[in-house]
């Protein structure tokens, strides 16, 4: 969540200290790629003036807590997850015991029926649930994560009463801090410990540790929870009818507006309101990149139409959360004029993409040019609508910042003898049915990637039933037809590809 003032400050910082552009990451943070090292203290000072910071954004500590971009407004949520996140933020900020863990540690919270926070791909995922007695608590997932060994988190506690949240996490983190591997950076995440011990033994150790911590001073009080929750009050909504006459009229008259609304306007729990996703996936721009001017436009839109608030999504877009339906047309016009209304949310070109080789020192390959090549191959909106819901994510290396493992189609940069190659996975999913994609075979040259993706899409459009999404067809007919089409007419055995098979095995067996 950001206030309009905070976004304006980010715009100003990007202009004064960077190249007038920021990048929203899958961590729902903003990354500045070209600040001068010696200017960072000034930048931090500027951030602090609007209550922002860069604390615990790197290092082997507990990172920022993430949640659903529709928190507090989603019709399908049990409760607002934000107070939980804030309680966890306070607990994790400069936590004295867990500042030097074996590896970084990410926690995500979901309180909705549909998980939009990818909690099963986090070190700890917390799902807020009611038990049979109607009490509120959390289901605790541990050991999920992407990276070079993608794993889906496992439930270690079906129901943990809310008051025990912090002491239980202290126990989880203590077991990890003491026994997580520190000899090999690639085997240091908690998922490796959970897998090595087995989930039963890991759970037993956590429970044993927790038996000492339970009911201690860290036990969360109702008074504290409510105090925090009072910071997340609903704005002063107007009493409106569910349907708005002028909105309905615009939808009828204006096809372009209607297609935008279909992809970018979302249900809201308050009648007459909607949430809007402003797409940062315009053709020709790096996914998640936002210019200083766009930041200012969004800040103005937030002030004019959405109580001065906005949210960043892990899909690298921006959400205005509280829009009267009658204002949607005006918002569309303004955002369209500023390159923020590409009507592609949830479609193929709404890609998650890490900064990759152009900017990231760890990269094996560039990812942004791949995204751009795919965008220009699939530039026909009607065709994109016809393809429908699909996720395509790109990471420049095994660190998987682009979440390629949990995409219906994943693209991963691999390095072979100094050359950039791309490995393709299919069948990954986020949400409640989170799944890790499977590698289709040897990797490709950059210029082959858009063609391979086109081939995969063709298999789908040929084989689908009227109600099926890409992932449904894939699950029904299996990976084989997709593999065959992807390699049809291609020589699988180019000499340089031999060594890639080692990389591939690692992922397949992970």
């Amino acid at each position, binding site marked *: 969540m950001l206030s309009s003032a905070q976004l304006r400050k980010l715009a100003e910082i990007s202009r004064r200290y960077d190249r007038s552009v920021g990048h929203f990451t899958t961590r729902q943070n903003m990354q500045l790629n070209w600040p001068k090292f010696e200017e960072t203290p000034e930048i931090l000072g500027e951030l602090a003036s609007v209550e922002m910071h860069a604390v615990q954004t790197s290092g*082997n500590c507990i990172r920022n807590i993430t949640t659903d971009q529709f928190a507090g407004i989603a019709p399908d949520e049990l409760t607002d997850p934000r107070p939980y996140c804030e309680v966890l933020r*306070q*607990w994790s*900020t*400069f*936590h*004295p*015991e*867990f*500042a*030097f*863990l074996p590896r970084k540690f990410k926690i995500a919270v979901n309180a909705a029926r549909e998980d939009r926070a990818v909690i099963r791909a986090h070190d700890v995922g917390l799902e807020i649930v009611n038990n049979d007695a109607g009490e509120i608590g959390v289901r605790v997932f541990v050991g999920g994560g992407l990276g070079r060994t993608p794993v889906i988190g496992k439930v270690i506690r079906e129901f943990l009463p809310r008051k025990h949240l912090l002491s239980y996490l202290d126990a989880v983190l*203590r077991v990890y*801090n*003491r026994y997580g591997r*520190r000899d090999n950076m690639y085997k240091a995440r908690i998922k490796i410990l959970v897998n090595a011990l087995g989930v039963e033994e890991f759970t037993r150790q956590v429970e044993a540790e927790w038996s*000492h911590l339970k009911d*201690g*001073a*860290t036990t*969360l*009080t109702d*008074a*504290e929870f409510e*105090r925090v929750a009072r910071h997340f009050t609903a704005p002063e909504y107007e009493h409106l009818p569910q349907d708005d006459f002028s909105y309905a009229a615009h939808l009828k008259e204006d096809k372009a507006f209607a297609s935008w609304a279909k992809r970018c306007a979302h249900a809201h729990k308050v009648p007459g309101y909607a949430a809007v996703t402003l797409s940062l996936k315009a053709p020709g721009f790096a996914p998640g990149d936002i210019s200083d001017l766009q930041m200012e436009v969004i800040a103005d839109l937030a002030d004019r139409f959405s109580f001065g608030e906005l949210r960043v999504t892990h899909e690298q877009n921006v959400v205005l959360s509280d829009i009267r339906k009658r204002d949607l047309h005006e918002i569309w016009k303004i955002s369209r004029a500023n390159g923020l209304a590409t009507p592609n949310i949830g479609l193929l070109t709404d890609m998650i993409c890490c900064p990759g080789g152009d900017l990231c020192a760890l990269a094996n390959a560039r990812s942004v040019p791949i995204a751009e090549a795919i965008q220009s191959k699939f530039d026909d909106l009607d065709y994109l609508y016809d393809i429908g819901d699909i996720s395509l994510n790109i990471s420049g290396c095994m660190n998987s910042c682009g979440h390629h493992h949990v995409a219906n189609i994943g693209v991963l940069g691999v390095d072979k003898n100094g050359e950039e190659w791309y490995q393709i996975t299919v069948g990954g999913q986020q949400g409640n049915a989170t799944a890790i994609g499977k590698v289709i075979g040897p990797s490709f040259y950059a210029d082959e990637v858009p063609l391979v993706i086109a081939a995969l899409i063709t298999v789908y459009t040929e084989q689908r039933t009227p109600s099926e999404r890409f992932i449904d067809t894939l699950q029904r007919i299996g990976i084989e037809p997709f593999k065959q089409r992807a390699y049809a007419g291609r020589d699988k055995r180019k000499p340089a590809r031999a060594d890639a098979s080692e990389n591939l095995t690692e992922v397949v067996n992970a």
Partner: protein
Amino acid sequence: MPKIIKNGQIIDDDWQILKLDGEQTAASLAWPDGNIMVPMTAWLERKAEILSRSKRPGVWLDSHEDVEAIAGDLEHFVVIGLNFPKFTDGRAYSTARLLRERYAYRGEIRAIGDVLQDQLFYMKRCGIDAFALREGKDIEAALSGLRVFSETYQAAVDQPQPLFRRRTA
């Protein structure tokens, strides 16, 4: 004489830390005169002998060593050293809290090894009350590392109540 920080003051220190480098094993260690901190393995193997010396002993644990092994012996130690082989190895933070909070150890807990100014605040919060800084570091400057923040959110050894309990009190 070497100096350490203890209870927020810089003081002279005469403790000798015995190490098992090279040829040395727990069995072959000799006891010099004066105050000695022995490796945990040596303590476990040669308890009676160490206790028969005229001076009360100290013991030190490496970061991978489980404090549970000496949990029954704590009354014997004047000081327990916790080694940080690298500052990024944070296991001893948990060890320190266990010593204080679970085993109620009241003697000195001393951070040894790669001990740096930036870590002192966390260490202090976990119950470490003495700091032998890494060689070559400015001990005077490091003192300010104990006072980085005026307020803290979490319950820990130095402040057993989390902020939220003090706020409502």
